């Protein structure tokens, strides 16, 4: 079976009455890794949140479909069960809920009642994945993200990604706050997911991550739109020359959507 297709068409999104995305078009298929790059404040994280259904973001125009199904009609949990996953930039801390119980509930939410994942199989899978991500075993019994360092939170997001095996994943600034060793470990986890069944949208404003994860397609966002797309060579040019040449090329003075500099 081939992978899924996530299709974003002319997407307009507002937060508190202010338009942040002004017509985004993007298609991600199983087997493809896409990178969305751009300076801060150009709408990258808004795109990620809107796809997943963050309660503060309102889609005012356009469509998102997953294999033809209307994602915007789905509740957040339905989107996840349909195959979407978002590794968040700021994962919530939830006291009193262990990481392991949370993950098991997440896995079982995708399975039929009465067909829950056997406990031993779950523990084995979790142990193996935590080893790969070089995570301390006691993190399984710690409360979800509570007191985790920035790096631990990011690894924990990738742990969830690997355990939940979505068909399309969006990684929102998964590299921010990571030192080079942690970045390598996280990249190793993401690369391990590569298959025809898995598509990925990597949001970052550093080229650094792309030294470890090679994207098939690179997109640049400015002013709430995708303004340029290309192959991996585009990321390399951005690394070498920055974003100014794109601004000049397109006659853009202020690349942000006014949210923040």
């Amino acid at each position, binding site marked *: 079976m081939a992978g899924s297709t996530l299709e974003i068409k002319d997407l307009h999104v507002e937060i508190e009455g202010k338009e942040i995305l002004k017509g985004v078009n993007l298609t991600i298929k199983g087997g493809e890794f896409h990178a969305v790059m751009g300076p801060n404040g150009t709408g990258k994280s808004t795109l990620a949140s809107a796809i997943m*259904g963050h309660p503060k973001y309102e889609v005012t125009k356009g469509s998102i479909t997953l294999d033809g199904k209307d994602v915007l009609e789905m509740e957040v949990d339905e989107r996840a069960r349909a195959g979407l*996953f978002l590794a968040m930039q700021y994962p919530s801390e939830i*006291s009193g809920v262990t990481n392991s119980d949370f993950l098991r509930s997440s896995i079982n939410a995708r399975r039929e009642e009465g067909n829950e994942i056997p406990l031993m199989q779950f523990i084995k899978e979790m142990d193996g994945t935590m080893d790969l991500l070089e995570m301390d075993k006691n993190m399984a019994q710690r409360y979800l993200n509570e007191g985790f360092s920035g790096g631990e939170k990011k690894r924990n997001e990738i742990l969830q990604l690997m355990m939940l095996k979505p068909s399309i994943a969006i990684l929102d600034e998964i590299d921010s706050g990571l030192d080079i060793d942690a970045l390598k470990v996280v990249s190793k986890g993401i690369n391990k997911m590569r298959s025809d069944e898995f598509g990925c949208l990597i949001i970052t404003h550093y080229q650094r991550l792309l030294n470890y994860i090679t994207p098939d397609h690179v997109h640049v966002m400015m002013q709430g739109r995708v303004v340029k797309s290309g192959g991996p060579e585009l990321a390399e040019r951005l690394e070498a020359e920055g974003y100014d040449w794109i601004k000049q090329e397109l006659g853009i003075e202020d690349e942000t959507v006014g949210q923040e500099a």
Partner: protein
Amino acid sequence: MTVETQLPYDRQYVSQFADGRGEPEWMKNLRLKALEEAESLPMPKPEKTRINNWNFTRFEHDVKGEAITSLDDLPENIRVFVDQENISKNLIVQRNHSVAYQSLSDELKDKGVIFTDILTAMKEHSDLVEKYFMKDAAKVHENRLTALHAALLNGGVFLYVPKNVVIEEPVQVIFWQEDDEAALYNHVLLVADTGSEVTYVENYISHNTEKESVANIISEVIAMDQARVSYGAVDNFASGTTAYMNRRGVAYRDAKIEWALGQMNDGNTISENLTNLMGDNSYADAKAVSVGRGNQSQNFVSKIVHYGKHSEGYILQHGVMKDRASSIFNGIGKIEHGASKSNAEQESRVLMLSSGARGDANPILLIDEDDVTAGHAASVGRVDPIQLYYLMSRGISQKEAERLIIHGFLAPVVKEIPIEAVKEQLTQVIEGKVY
């Protein structure tokens, strides 16, 4: 407006009741004096909770309960509180006002541990009980209800742990109000002598959803120098029972008292937990969780008073409120003059599940000494939509996500309960109350 507390139990009744039980003279006199004082003493005045129309007078006072020969004779809804995998060797089941089942391991008997119902203790260890009974931790004349407690006492246990005796396994008591109208005037007296250690767990259970009754409960924990007491409780009186519950602790030098209270009553409840840190380096950790539902009104006080130097007190109260329930949470840390280098910390949080519910968290710090540290946090709010979003983004339904957040919110007490069966029951009670 006056509160109706005229009882059908007079001097003659109390006198005969004490005689009938064969109590020592000091107890009978204490009862009679308390009954007399009750007439003039005021009712307790819980802050911001009106108790005018609460039932304190309609109940049956003396109801026998049949003994059982084996724990298998317990009905299923009581037996579940006993760990079937690892049945406690130190267990008392009180049925109405009688002891139905009682066991204490030979090992602990040999070490001089006393664990028995309060009446037997008064007869067989009269001096020891008299020395501590409503002397240091709770007092007869605090208010009308404490006085009535002493006058009408009809149940309870006495646990004495001798010097340097460490009890590894938890000691468990189940107070089973089987009769729907039987009132519990229940007294727990726990004395941990110098250097001793004990973990105690109690359950209060009734099923009177139609008929009315009263629970007037006092627990006294005396932790002598270097003693350590862990005290776990699950209160589970049904909606027909009005509960007035006082759990008091006194910690002397280097002593430690830890409370983990699951306050799950369905009826109107006043519940106060007070620890006096008398000794230097004494320590108290008071954790309590509760769920309010229906129309019930509850008032919780968690209070730690520091007298000893370098004393440490930690209060945590978490409450979940739904339907039209109303609860007041008062956290009080008090540092007396001279209790230098002490630390008083508290956290009170209320989670509101419906707009008709009411919850107040009142953090209070009263400090009469300069050289101390103290802190408090309090909040009243709804389930965080961003937390919900995060959980749901992993495929978990909204209902299940809320469930996880609520159980997590109440986990600080649940995880402290040392008996698996009781922990499981507390989890189920929470489940039943919230959904």
